[in-house]
């Protein structure tokens, strides 16, 4: 059973289609990255599957529960909305206490303290939220989403607007939560973050899923050329010219240097041949680096 399964999920506002017939299957236990530019429809998608907005058409199942079993979904799902504000008059502790009661949990004070210390708010737990920094509010947002130990956690831009230190803390927290078996659905603008954390990625553009797969699958799908950097012994001018001509027909681009050469080949299978050509001409190769396309390049290729 998938953690999330959507079938032709669509949301329209008037004539504008914000989410367009999205079919998505998210396996249990994965950290699933959901990428897209501003206005791509990521938050609308999350808001639909968490019951905040009604789909215009299509259906979805969360942890096997259909959309009309919202109360069952709420018990097993945690949500960090994209923009989190809290009650100014409450402290972090009273927020979590209030939210756990809404979820009909009967957590002890110790349980709440454990969650607060998990997100690093234990020292500020009795301070009213109006005095919190943006980063602290994000942490409280995460704390409220995991208070009931959900099986599926939606994190909508968990690190946006947060300083570098807090980003690292949130990243380790996400890994920690995932290690406990929680499926995580993470949306982000930060490609590096998604690449670093996620097992599987979907890219949304203009309301539709443009591509989905693991990083390797996306690379294989969108990778056009492979750039190889070869660090070798110092080559004479004569050797450089000879080497340059021996690659004819094999490479897309070739740039032989004195100690480092850059060879661009059309497929991964040609990498051993490139190495053989160097070794065959009695050139010692010290290091061979294969430059793979980053998620950013794949993302830009989809434009």
């Amino acid at each position, binding site marked *: 059973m998938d953690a999330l399964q959507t079938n032709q999920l669509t949301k329209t506002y008037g004539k504008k289609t914000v989410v367009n017939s999205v079919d998505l299957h998210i396996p249990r236990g994965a950290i699933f990255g959901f990428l897209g530019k501003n206005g791509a429809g990521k938050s609308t998608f999350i*808001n639909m599957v968490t*019951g*905040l907005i009604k789909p215009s058409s299509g259906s979805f199942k969360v942890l096997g529960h259909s959309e009309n079993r919202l109360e069952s979904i*709420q018990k097993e799902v945690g*949500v960090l*909305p994209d923009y989190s*504000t809290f009650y100014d*008059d409450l402290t972090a502790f009273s927020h979590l206490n209030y*939210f756990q009661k*809404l979820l009909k949990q009967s957590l002890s004070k110790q349980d709440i303290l454990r969650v607060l210390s998990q997100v690093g708010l234990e020292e500020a737990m009795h301070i009213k939220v109006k005095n919190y920094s943006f980063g602290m509010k994000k942490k409280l947002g995460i704390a409220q989403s995991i208070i009931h130990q959900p099986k599926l956690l939606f994190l909508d831009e968990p690190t946006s607007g947060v300083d570098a230190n807090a980003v690292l803390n949130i990243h380790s927290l996400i890994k920690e939560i995932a290690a406990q078996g929680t499926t995580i659905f993470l949306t982000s603008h930060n490609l590096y973050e998604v690449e670093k954390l996620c097992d599987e990625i979907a890219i949304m553009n203009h309301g539709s899923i443009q591509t989905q797969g693991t990083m390797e699958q996306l690379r294989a799908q969108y990778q056009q050329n492979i750039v190889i950097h070869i660090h070798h012994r110092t080559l004479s001018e004569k050797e450089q010219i000879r080497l340059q001509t021996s690659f004819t027909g094999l490479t897309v681009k070739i740039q032989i240097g004195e100690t480092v050469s850059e060879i661009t080949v059309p497929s991964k299978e040609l990498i051993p041949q490139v190495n053989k050509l160097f070794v065959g001409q009695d050139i010692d190769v010290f290091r061979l680096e294969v430059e793979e396309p980053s998620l950013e390049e794949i993302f830009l290729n989809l434009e």
Partner: protein
Amino acid sequence: MFTVGLREFRSLFTSIRSILIIAVLFGVTVGAARLVRQFEAPLQELGLGQDAYVMGLMLLLILAAPLFVTSLSHSIVNKEIDTRTIRFLATKTSRSNIILGKFIGSFLFWSVCITVALLLIIPFSKSFSVLNLIQAIIFVSYFIGLTLFLSTIISKPSLSMFLGIIISIALPVLGLWSTGTDNLFIKTLGYVTPYFYYMQEENDHYYTYFVAFFPILFIVLSLFIFRKRDL
């Protein structure tokens, strides 16, 4: 539902505005009772008896309850939507629980305030009228329901406050006017205000219980709209 209600109840007690309203409510009640005490004999002759002590409170409620309720609860639902705290609630409990909880919290707050105000009159009246208490609570619950409904259908708190104030002034005027006019339109409009039912003959006080139907209607309408709404 009760968790939302309890939170609403507590937050109403802690705001400055509510403290001021409680002070006015209690101050006017005790002040009116003291005033009535000075004219006890003539009022007894008029047949008002012990009810005269409660009249101060009832008069205050009839004229100012709409404004009191509006000023405290005009943003009971839409503030949560405006600040997006609703997203924390709606992902943890059902929408029906939110609406019913909001009503219960506000209803409890006013019930406690009116009960305390009536208790404060006891030293003067030497009696406690449960009937008056129920009637006063039903009267106020009309406005709690109306405010909840307005706050559900209007998304901006500033607009619901503006409209709430207009209605708070218009309803008593319209309601009281409808009881003494032959204008069919005004008379018909009067049926949807609680004033028509509260201005019936003394013996027909069962009319006032009919007013309890209105908050139920407002809650049902609010639930219907809120369930369909994108948050």
